[in-house]
């Protein structure tokens, strides 16, 4: 089947089966993106680059890049760093694994609003969290975990951790169990099995999990509004983009912000995936079926 010549490809119906998907992606993803890119160079006033100049010379605009990264990077790192040991512990196929995974998956179903409402009620100044701490005399002062930076990071961990965990669990259980068992037979402790066998094998998976979690954390729009202080400490770049488009009706500026957002996001992805190639060159996954 793969020995066909190039000419007969066009008569191969299997090649045409991708056509609807390709047309859809070109029409709904590529074309609007190019349209937006061109639009971003056609500002309401000023020269071609004036949207970009305005973005990088207005404090409450360009600062949003830093604010977004300051929220998304730590949240993603926390999620990955907790998910790895937990997934490693749950790597064996047992009923315990199934129950634990199911419980850990529940936060995926919460949705931004339930998390926001729950955090405002639970972590609020008079919520159960504060009451428990005060009853147990652990911490007496006022607890500020909502409407600030901490609130948004916590909500990103609650909503992002289950996803990171599932991905990493999937990578770890994808490793042929014979490999760590061989290491164990040679006397490797669980830590050394992880350090020398599992970790190098899941590193590509970790890079991918980091990128996918980072994408989620990077567009923190609803939680940054509901749980943060959208005018100050958690004024993320998606808020700036939304304001430009739907409050100022400046679609040209909004497109420029979206392009900058995409560039920053892709920059991080490229760095992470590039770093993976620096550290490890070898088979991409172990024991894939």
């Amino acid at each position, binding site marked *: 089947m793969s020995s066909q010549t190039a000419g007969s490809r066009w008569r191969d119906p299997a090649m045409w089966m991708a056509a609807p998907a390709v047309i859809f992606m070109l029409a709904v993803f590529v074309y609007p993106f190019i349209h937006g890119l061109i639009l971003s160079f056609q500002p309401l006033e000023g020269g071609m680059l004036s949207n970009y100049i305005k973005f990088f010379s207005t404090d409450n605009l360009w600062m949003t890049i830093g604010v977004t990264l300051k929220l998304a990077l730590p949240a993603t790192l926390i999620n990955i760093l907790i998910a790895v040991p937990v997934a490693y512990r749950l790597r064996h196929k047992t009923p315990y694994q199934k129950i634990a995974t199911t419980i850990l998956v529940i936060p995926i179903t919460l949705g931004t609003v339930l998390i926001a409402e729950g955090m405002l009620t639970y972590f609020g100044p008079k919520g159960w969290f504060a009451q428990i701490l005060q009853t147990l005399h652990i911490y007496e002062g006022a607890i500020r975990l909502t409407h600030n930076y901490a609130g948004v990071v916590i909500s990103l961990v609650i909503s992002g951790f289950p996803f990171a965990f599932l991905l990493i669990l999937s990578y770890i259980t994808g490793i042929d169990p014979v490999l760590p068992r061989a290491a164990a037979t040679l006397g490797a402790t669980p830590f050394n099995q992880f350090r020398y066998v599992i970790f190098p094998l899941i590193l590509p998976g970790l890079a991918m999990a980091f990128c996918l979690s980072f994408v989620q954390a990077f567009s923190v729009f609803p939680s940054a509004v509901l749980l943060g202080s959208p005018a100050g400490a958690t004024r993320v770049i998606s808020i700036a983009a939304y304001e430009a488009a739907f409050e100022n009706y400046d679609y040209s500026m*909004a497109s420029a912000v979206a392009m900058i957002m995409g560039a920053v996001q892709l920059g991080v992805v490229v760095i992470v995936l590039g770093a993976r190639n620096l550290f490890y060159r070898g088979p991409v996954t172990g024991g894939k*079926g």
Partner: protein
Amino acid sequence: MMTSQSISRQPAPKRRTHWASRAWSGLVVGLMTFFLINVGLMIASVATNSVAKRWLGTWLPNGWTLEWYSAAWQEFQLGDVLLVTIQVVLSVVVLSILIGVPAAYTLARRNFRGKKLLTGLFLLPLMIPPITYGIPLATLMYELHLAGTLPGVIIANLLPALPFVILVMTPFIEQIDPNLESAARVFGARTFTMFRHVLVPLLAPGILAASLLVLVRTIAMFELTFLTAGADTQTLVVALYYSVFAAGVRASQSIDAMAMVYMIVTLIWLLIAMRFVSPTQLVSRVKEHPQN
């Protein structure tokens, strides 16, 4: 390589657990328990508030009532919102499968120039945040008067769903023995007949799993619906967001009642999905080795 002799020469130190590794595993379990207890209590406080008469700064509310659920149903025009949600979600699931599975077949079975480029095109929407491509898309839709309409919301939500289906289904198709297709061809089946009678039945579990996952993702997709929906084309997530954003307009209890409805709806679908696809098989499959 390893003979049974060399295995038996091992002094069998396996059962001796180091104090450090015991402390470590205690720490991991403890951390997880702390996380889960707090998430559990957080859900419980929303659930409590949704059935509370009044609850201000005490351990428990001063009375219980179920009326917030019926109030929420009317206030949010939940009937209409749910109808829109069902229409959007079902259309996205059906369309993403109909368009995505054939495309996954091409990627799984054919090698051609530009295949990497095509894979990249399908991967890119998953690698940048929805709001990034949502804004140019919404801008275009406003120009074409598609924004605010049901087809507009469906098209926008299809954008991340389609690549997701393709990426989930490609490894599923790769694992099916190509000889089955060759056999069908020997008996004279054309590609589409073969697809319908051989591949689709074999792929049914994978298609079911992918549809359920798309369903859960689409119910939860906030940004794209938020950017493209009009007043009467909001899905449940977006309606909920507006109700919290306009805090004070609605009682927090009725928002919490809605949030509970949302969580239960999503949870049911996710649990069904997990019955058909083990979450550990999302990105890679491994031959099941006997655990001893």
